[in-house]
């Protein structure tokens, strides 16, 4: 029983951006290509383009995140869209307003796109299933499920350094179990044709049957796992996981899985190091690596805006196409 992919319209164009799962390699490459185009906007004196003028984008964040929200906001503003920022604390849901009430209220204000972050997996799919036909949903992180724009900005960063996905070895290190970023990265890397994706973590931080679920290989030793890797992606580890049944201490974690120049020595000499931020220095990696020559962490931030502009403009641009086929308009 195959149901159609809920994030594509009848013509296979992007309508919502919920997950990497089920998207084609061609579509992911189109997103990357569009993002390359938007990178130039930051070089302009007026750092915006009029593409989405008159569109209204609502940032609906049920989980606070200044960083991600800011890059979405900036991306929308550079597209000339109007932006509403709504930090919906748990108190308003405690007042009895359901997610659907919130959605309906904002739809009545003619919002064209919702950028949604929520603590529960599947929220973006739920919103997309109930949104009005002319409204797009962009997933800015749902539970442990997906964070597809983060994954795509990482893919853009990788491609700008290592253009040939077919040749790469990529290692992802850290809390895979709780990470929506890792899930989206694994799917994106495999879809783009990366043959060797490795995940490195103690068993408590690896989800059940992860190798089979994502087509990756699991390692429990950092030096072995990063051997000959072209890209090393470090994940953020939540402090509340420490001193629990999952991990004994920050000290032991850093001793075994913290990235240092020494442990990185088995990777390829031109390997790049990435991190979605914010970094816990001395837990996930030491400062020497974070600020070192291999680190592309700040490029990731820059690329994040361009990728979000690409995804938002693709979804918004497809909204009014309906079922008619895309025809080149006279524009000479």
């Amino acid at each position, binding site marked *: 029983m195959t149901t159609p992919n809920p994030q594509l319209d009848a013509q296979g*164009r992007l309508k919502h951006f919920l997950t990497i799962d089920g998207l084609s390699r061609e579509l992911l490459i*189109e997103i990357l*290509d*569009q993002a*390359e*185009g*938007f*990178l*130039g*906007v930051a*070089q*302009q*004196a*007026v750092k*915006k*383009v*009029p*593409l*989405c003028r008159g569109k209204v984008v609502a940032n609906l964040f049920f989980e606070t995140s200044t960083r991600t929200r800011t890059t979405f906001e900036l991306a929308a503003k550079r597209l000339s869209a109007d932006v509403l920022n709504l930090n919906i604390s748990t108190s308003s849901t405690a007042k009895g307003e359901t997610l659907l009430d919130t959605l309906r209220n904002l739809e009545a204000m003619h919002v064209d796109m919702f950028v949604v972050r929520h603590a529960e997996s599947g929220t973006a799919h739920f919103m997309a299933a109930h949104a009005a036909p002319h409204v797009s949903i962009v997933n800015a992180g749902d539970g442990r499920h997906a964070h597809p724009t983060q994954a795509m900005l990482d893919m853009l960063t990788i491609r700008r350094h290592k253009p040939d996905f077919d040749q790469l070895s990529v290692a992802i290190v850290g809390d895979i179990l709780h990470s929506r970023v890792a899930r989206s990265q694994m799917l994106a890397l495999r879809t783009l044709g990366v043959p060797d994706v490795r995940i490195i973590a103690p068993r408590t931080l690896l989800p059940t049957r992860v190798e089979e679920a994502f087509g990756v290989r699991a390692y429990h030793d950092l030096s072995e796992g990063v051997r000959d890797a072209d890209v090393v992606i470090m994940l953020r580890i939540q402090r509340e996981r420490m001193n629990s049944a999952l991990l004994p201490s920050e000290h032991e974690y850093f001793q075994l899985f913290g990235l240092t120049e020494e442990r990185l020595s088995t990777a390829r000499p031109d390997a790049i190091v990435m991190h979605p931020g914010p970094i816990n220095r001395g837990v996930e990696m030491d400062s020497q690596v974070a600020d070192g020559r291999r680190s592309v962490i700040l490029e990731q931030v820059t690329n994040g805006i361009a990728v979000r502009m690409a995804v938002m*403009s*693709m979804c918004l*641009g*497809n*909204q*009014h*196409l309906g079922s008619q086929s*895309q*025809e*080149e*308009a*006279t*524009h*000479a």
Partner: protein
Amino acid sequence: MSKSDIWKDAAAIEAAIDTMTERLRERLERRGIERPLMIGIHTGGVWVAERLHARLGLAEPLGHLDISFYRDDFSRVGMHPQVRPSYLPVGVDDRHLILVDDVLQSGRTIRAAHNVLFDYGRPASVTLAVLLERDGRELPIAADVAGFEAGFGADEQIKLSGPEPLLMLRARRGVNPIR
């Protein structure tokens, strides 16, 4: 496959570009412009600009402009599938610009190009050079220099094919034009 025929062959086009080169040179002299900045509009405009740039022997590197993000038909056709980054190697503030495109028809591309340029800065002047100035204007925009001037049926499309050799092809609307 599209049914199209060659409207102008490579030799005719190269000759037209020679004519454009001469007219631009005269215009620059008359206005006393010494270091103009040439900018081609993706994709056909860049091909024409590359030739003009070489023949005029301009010192400044050639700029490229992609107007996809400034189109006025976004809400009708969505994102253009192939966007190339704009590339303006030199700041445009207070500079005299020569904007080059292949075909001037509705004027909407040039309108969009103006908007891009003004988001990069405030140029001193903009001269518009096109390979073909044809009928069908929808905005008050005119070329300063044109290689060809001609009228066509409203259902006829003229496209520049390139980069080597440059050919101008004529197709009927409704038939998929050469992309």
